[in-house]
């Protein structure tokens, strides 16, 4: 298997991998080509890691979590589909309010205990306990907020979730509070926990050592915890009972670098580790000696004007159109961002979903100037300050914003500035009452999953306020509803395209570009796969087949 160079190759490779795995599973031949060895990685770098190693309450880290636990469904290798993982099949009633899932036969926990639907139900009840101690309920909400009785259970008004019913050891039924044609896509971060082994209370979720203690940990993924050295590394050992076969590796070590990419890169070059996330500026010096894994990140970088929140020139759509026409986004992505970014017409970061007739607002400074004139806005009166969070405070993005500054000055907008701040400052300062109302930052948009539909929802519990998508514009509610209600994948993709077109026409915020993200791996690793998924996925990486020569 060769590493991926570019999005198209990734799709092809993903299909090849999926097909190979499917055939192997069917024939009962799944298993390693090579045996033994230890692979040392920096999976905590970039979007895929989290030293905490604690699923269900993590901003990222799914690349690690999925090594330890299986989920009912999962993204495929290139994030183009949600596919079965712990489940064998699913079915829904006609209005998509009742979903029945069947677990694979013969699933075992790492201690040899059979995994049953009771474990699944136990996990659902555990995570919705009113005193659950997790600090990031995003995955819980994604997985369970649609289930009937969720609000009552989490509020302490009910003892159990009404919408969960165990039919038999392998079958579980979900009753939803509203129709969802793709409920299986809500379960890709549902890390099933072992009822027989969890010896802590929901309130102690963040303080228990269970997830790090080899003597207590019981998992279901290809690896189990063997050693945890805080701040240094976690060693995972092969799970002999993994349902796709014992991993080829004896050990998978995840080294922690405190988020410093330079340190991880130096460790890679010194042969101390075999894989790390790298930036686009590192790639040219690495591509001769390492396998470079690359794909679109699914993270849209945008700036948002939130014209509903400000009473100034930006409330006129012609001003917003002028801003986009004034900035040569293609030149910036090609020349400043090194061709690793592409400009986008809307917040959907996947080119194959963009309608052919979507408005793209190409570089046209004359048109920009005339639009401002038509709007009766003096460009000299426009004041713009973009605030980004520290994750983008690097040379490439600073240079890109300096170019934006230069382009805007060409049409007379000279009062432009930008700054990067840490995340709490960013969050606290950006609000209707905050100091700044224009952001420069990224946002993970998985190609498929309920996040997409809810991201732009004004009324739902998810997204509003936290993400800042507080605008209310004609047609958006209907477009979002159409995405959520799409009964088939084709309908879903078409609805996303319609949303993209509407967004580009109305410009509630101004989209800039979406970037590739990169990983570099030692070529001696066999069958290795890595994908720059938002927050690390999880996605099928077939870690049980990874091997070292």
């Amino acid at each position, binding site marked *: 298997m060769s590493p991926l160079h570019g999005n198209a190759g990734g799709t092809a490779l993903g299909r090849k991998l999926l097909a190979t795995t499917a055939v192997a599973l069917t024939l009962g031949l799944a298993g390693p080509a090579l045996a033994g060895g230890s692979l040392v990685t920096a999976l905590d770098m970039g979007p895929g890691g989290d030293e905490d190693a604690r699923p269900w309450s993590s*901003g990222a880290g799914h690349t690690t979590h999925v090594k330890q636990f299986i989920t009912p469904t999962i993204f495929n290798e290139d994030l183009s589909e949600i596919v079965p993982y712990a489940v064998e099949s699913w079915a829904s009633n006609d209005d998509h309010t009742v979903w029945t899932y069947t677990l694979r036969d013969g699933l075992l926990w790492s201690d040899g205990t059979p995994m049953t639907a009771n474990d699944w139900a136990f996990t659902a009840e555990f995570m919705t306990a009113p005193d659950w101690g997790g600090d990031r309920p995003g995955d819980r909400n994604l997985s369970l907020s649609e289930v009937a009785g969720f609000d009552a259970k989490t509020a302490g008004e009910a003892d159990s979730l009404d919408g969960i019913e165990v039919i038999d050891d392998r079958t579980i039924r979900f009753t939803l509070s509203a129709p969802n044609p793709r409920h299986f896509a809500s379960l890709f971060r549902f890390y099933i926990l072992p009822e027989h082994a969890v010896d802590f209370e929901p309130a102690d979720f963040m303080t228990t050592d269970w997830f790090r203690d080899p003597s207590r940990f019981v998992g279901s993924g290809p690896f189990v915890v063997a050693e945890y050295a805080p701040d240094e590394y976690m060693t995972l050992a092969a799970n002999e009972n993994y349902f796709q076969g014992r991993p080829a590796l004896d050990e998978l070590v995840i080294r922690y670098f405190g988020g410093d990419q330079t340190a991880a890169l130096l460790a890679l070059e010194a042969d101390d580790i075999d894989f790390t996330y790298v930036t686009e500026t590192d790639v040219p010096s690495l591509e001769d000696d390492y396998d470079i894994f690359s794909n679109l990140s699914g993270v849209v970088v945008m700036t948002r004007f939130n014209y509903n929140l400000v009473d100034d020139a930006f409330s006129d759509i012609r001003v917003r159109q002028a801003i986009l026409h004034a900035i040569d986004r293609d030149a910036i992505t090609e020349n400043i961002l090194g061709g690793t970014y592409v400009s986008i017409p809307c917040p959907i970061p996947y080119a194959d979903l963009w309608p052919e007739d979507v408005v793209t607002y190409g570089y046209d400074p004359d048109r920009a100037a005339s639009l401002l004139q038509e709007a009766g806005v003096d460009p000299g009166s426009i004041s713009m300050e973009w605030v980004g969070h520290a994750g983008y405070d690097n040379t490439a993005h600073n240079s890109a914003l300096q170019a934006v500054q230069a382009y805007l000055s060409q049409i007379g907008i000279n009062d432009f500035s930008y700054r990067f701040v840490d995340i709490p400052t960013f969050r606290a300062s950006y609000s209707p009452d905050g100091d700044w109302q224009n952001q420069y930052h990224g946002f993970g948009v998985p190609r498929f999953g309920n996040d997409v539909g809810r991201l732009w929802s004004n009324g739902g519990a998810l997204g509003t306020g936290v993400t800042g998508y507080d605008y209310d514009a004609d047609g958006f509610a209907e477009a979002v509803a159409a995405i959520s209600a799409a009964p088939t994948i084709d309908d879903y993709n078409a609805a996303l395209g319609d949303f993209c077109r509407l967004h580009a026409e109305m410009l509630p915020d101004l989209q800039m570009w979406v970037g590739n993200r990169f990983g570099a791996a030692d070529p001696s690793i066999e069958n290795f796969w890595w994908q720059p998924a938002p927050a690390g996925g999880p996605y099928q990486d077939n870690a049980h087949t990874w091997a070292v020569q």
Partner: protein
Amino acid sequence: MTRYIIRRLLLAIPVLFMVTVLVFALIELAPGDVVDFFANPEVMAGMSEADLEALRERLGLNDPAPVRYLHWLGGVLQGDFGYSLIRSEPVGELLLRRFGNSMMIMGIGLFVAVTFGISLGIYTALRQYSVADFTISFLSFVGISMPAFIAGILALYIFSVQLGWFPAGGMRSPGVHTLGDLLHHLILPALVLSIIHMATFMRYTRFSMLDVLKQEYVVTATAKGMPRRIVVMRHAFRNGLIPVVTMIGYSIPELVVGAVFLETIFSFPGMGKLYFDSVISRDFPVIMAANLVIAVFVLAANLITDVAYAAIDPRIRLE
């Protein structure tokens, strides 16, 4: 002397109290809190403001500031520094571990820096304007001028990536728990750290020794026919050491504070990186406890330095 030390220790109590109040006030003034840190705008699609508010309530962040401060202070007085909101472990254990790590790297670095810095300072002072003096002085300027992270990256690139003599960061090889492996990981960052401090100590020692060597009592001692070694070590060095001791005293708190850039480059889990990460994530219990520990060490270092003056120079009496 004993009364002096007791008085200084008693005076430290209100100072420490004021430090905690000041740090708490600064945290309050900073925009955002730890819950805002959890709400990373890139990955926050699944959380609502209601979730965040519930989290604030559970963590006690909605309590009035004086209540939160008193709650924290009450815990500290009972030996409980609270729980890290980011790292999900007791702050006391966290600080102890990180402090131990920092002590290893900073201790070795400071020991090497003091030993070689003072020795080179004396050596160059005794050979003023010689080739050795110019060479060592030039190198010391390089050491003082070079930022720690540049020195760290250069050292890693040369000695780890190119030569392969040392591991490229970290504190241990995964799964290896031997002293040899630990030292192998410590040598390079400790040496880089020591070079930076060594240059400073060398410059101070040289300047101070040159000043003392011109004093009349040194000339007198030499005129009396005392051996050069005794003149230098007994008469000049002891007096020349006082400003150097001050510098060393100032360096002691760094044992606790750590070296944030160096720890980052060497992916070394010390206090400096912990403190930095805690500030940007608004991990209030860790920031407070770390500041308290640092303040204790600063006060202790000042006290030790003052006591050392008296030990070095009999003319100084502590009352």
